[in-house]
């Protein structure tokens, strides 16, 4: 393996992991941007997406669709997982967050933590405590560029993640609903006075954020090959760090933050002693917050800005 190949391979590894973190981080950042709440149950929504993907994919595999209608199968699997988790997200908002919208922030955070435990235990009871194997859709086939091996599965997942992020950017900046979201994020009271339907805007946020998380869940299942009820926790920690690093509330911040966290994690382990991998990731987070408390793309507290 040449040095170029080695570096290229590690960059692919980093890009892959970073895109997954970015997709999950978007869910945190969007919800925070709109209602200033850290949705601690987001990691569980991500896991729920992975399980729905598993159930749908297993069903489609048993009727042989994976071989005969590959693209259609993927569309159905991702669509079902995202739709189900979007419904779950809206329900979560309705049950756990809406009644507390005008209560103290601590109450909402406790409610989020409670929902996280509730969902996690629910999945434990319904899906079991152990790893569930995902059907092997992508084998070891792929392309080799200058000694770096990129599997078809990696290409598919990276492209899909990028497509979802581009679609989100277009939605937020090019549509009326997106504009309403940005306005609500800036100043909820003023937006309401101008006739924006705040409830609807929040609901849309709780559709998009969890749906992106669900897509990331399916990707993790497809690529790593196993899902478990508590797998959301480790991904949540990393994605949360990514959202904070990028500046919580900022959509491009979450994407870049995800890529940075994934990149540091992989590249540190690649070139320096791997025992220190996680220490470095979080040291970097502390350093960034020390010099720029609102994160790399953060714009400071909304109240201050207004």
């Amino acid at each position: 393996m040449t040095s170029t190949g080695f570096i290229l391979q590690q960059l692919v590894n980093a890009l892959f992991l970073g895109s997954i973190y970015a997709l999950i981080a978007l869910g945190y950042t969007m919800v925070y941007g709109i209602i200033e709440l850290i949705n601690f149950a987001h990691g569980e929504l991500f896991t729920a997406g992975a399980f729905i993907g598993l159930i749908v994919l297993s069903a489609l595999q048993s009727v042989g669709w994976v071989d005969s209608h590959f693209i259609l199968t993927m569309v159905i699997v991702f669509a079902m997982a995202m739709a189900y988790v979007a419904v779950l997200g809206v329900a979560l908002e309705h049950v756990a967050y809406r009644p507390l919208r005008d209560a103290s922030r601590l109450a909402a955070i406790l409610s989020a933590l409670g929902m996280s435990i509730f969902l996690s235990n629910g999945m434990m009871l319904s899906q079991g405590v152990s790893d569930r194997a995902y059907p092997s859709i992508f084998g070891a086939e792929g392309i080799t560029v200058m000694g770096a091996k990129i599997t078809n599965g990696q290409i598919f997942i990276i492209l899909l993640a990028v497509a979802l992020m581009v679609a989100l950017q277009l939605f937020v900046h090019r549509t009326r609903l997106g504009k309403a979201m940005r306005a609500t994020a800036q100043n909820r009271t003023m937006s309401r006075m101008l006739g924006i339907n705040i409830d609807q805007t929040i609901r849309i946020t709780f559709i998009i954020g969890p749906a992106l998380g669900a897509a990331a869940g399916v990707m993790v299942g497809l690529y790593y090959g196993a899902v478990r009820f508590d797998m959301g926790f480790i991904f949540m920690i990393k994605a949360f760090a990514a959202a904070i690093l990028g500046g919580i509330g900022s959509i491009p911040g979450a994407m870049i933050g995800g890529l940075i966290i994934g990149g540091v994690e992989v590249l540190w382990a690649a070139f320096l002693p791997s025992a220190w991998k996680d220490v470095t990731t979080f040291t970097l987070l502390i350093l960034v917050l020390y010099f720029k408390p609102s994160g790399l793309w953060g714009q400071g507290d909304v109240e201050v800005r207004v």
Partner: protein
Amino acid sequence: MKKIAIVIMCVALIAGFHGMAAAKTLKIGTLSPLTGPYAQDGTDIKQGVLTAVKVFGKLPGFDKVEVLPGDSACDGGKATMAANKLINSGVQVVVGAYCSSATEPAQIPLMDAKIIMITPASTNERLTQKGYKYFFRMPPRDDVQAWSTVQFLEKKLKAKTLALIDDKQTYTAGLTANITKFAKKDNMIKIVAHEFITPGDSDFTAVLTKLKRLNPDAIYMGVYQPEGSKMIRQARKLDMKSTFISEDAVYHPKFLEVGGKAAEGVYLTFAKAPDSPERRAFEKTYKKMWNAKSIGSYAYYAYDAGMMTLAAIKKAGTADPDQLEKTIRENTWPGITGKIKFDSKGDRKLAHIIWVVKNNKFVPYWNPITGKDL
């Protein structure tokens, strides 16, 4: 007259309570991770003990046998808390824990409370070297395991270079330290890298790519099954040419299920599985009782621990820790993992063999003691 009546009533009450206490229940606690990444193995252990209690049936001298499951979560703090909880609920014997890093701290309160502790899974050699009288271990030790691995690498694989991966826990770090020690002593294999991963992680491509560039003859995966299954899949996707070797924590049906085709050709160390009618009967009962397709490797040891405990209590006629300890140590017990006889430290004389994954099954491959193919 009234006073006398009250006194008689009190005496009757006390006698009554005493009579109730005499309705004797044997309480066996289990300590294993029922939550967290290793919950599969933890559940296997709990179910193994419950199966033993059911199969053994009536225990003379006791009205009933109760199993109290404790959750050690593969975490020292949680294991100690769970151990204390079991002590407070009055258990006489504890079967557990799974991770060596959970067993080690849990030993302290249990040994202080004079409770017999039998681990069905923890293999770090340190556990039996503390002079604890009431501690017994079912599986073979990690220094034996590491020795078998090094023998295999030197004599069968004839590997010249080796890379180690571990997740920094007591069990895995102990294994890689032992392998390093044995390899250095023989000086036939060069250890070219020692990499680390974090338990619970999913992505190991960075470390694997690093090892791909070094291209050692063999790579040792010192991890638990959930990480091992994902690691081998990623290694195959990277087209790595090294031979992969792993250990008893990865030796689990789940490794075959999640690893699938990627698991083919992986070598693992695990004790021999003696074929006996009792073992087959256990497999049948277990599968039926828990509606299970496959049986976790540590369910066998847990079942043996449970059966041996009950047989020893029957023989000793009491659950008193000192007499029970003596009975367990002085006798040889039948078991589905081979004959059970403990030495003065609480270890069995069990050896490992090398297994290989072939057609999605674990197949015996090589015996490090005789140096012969199996």
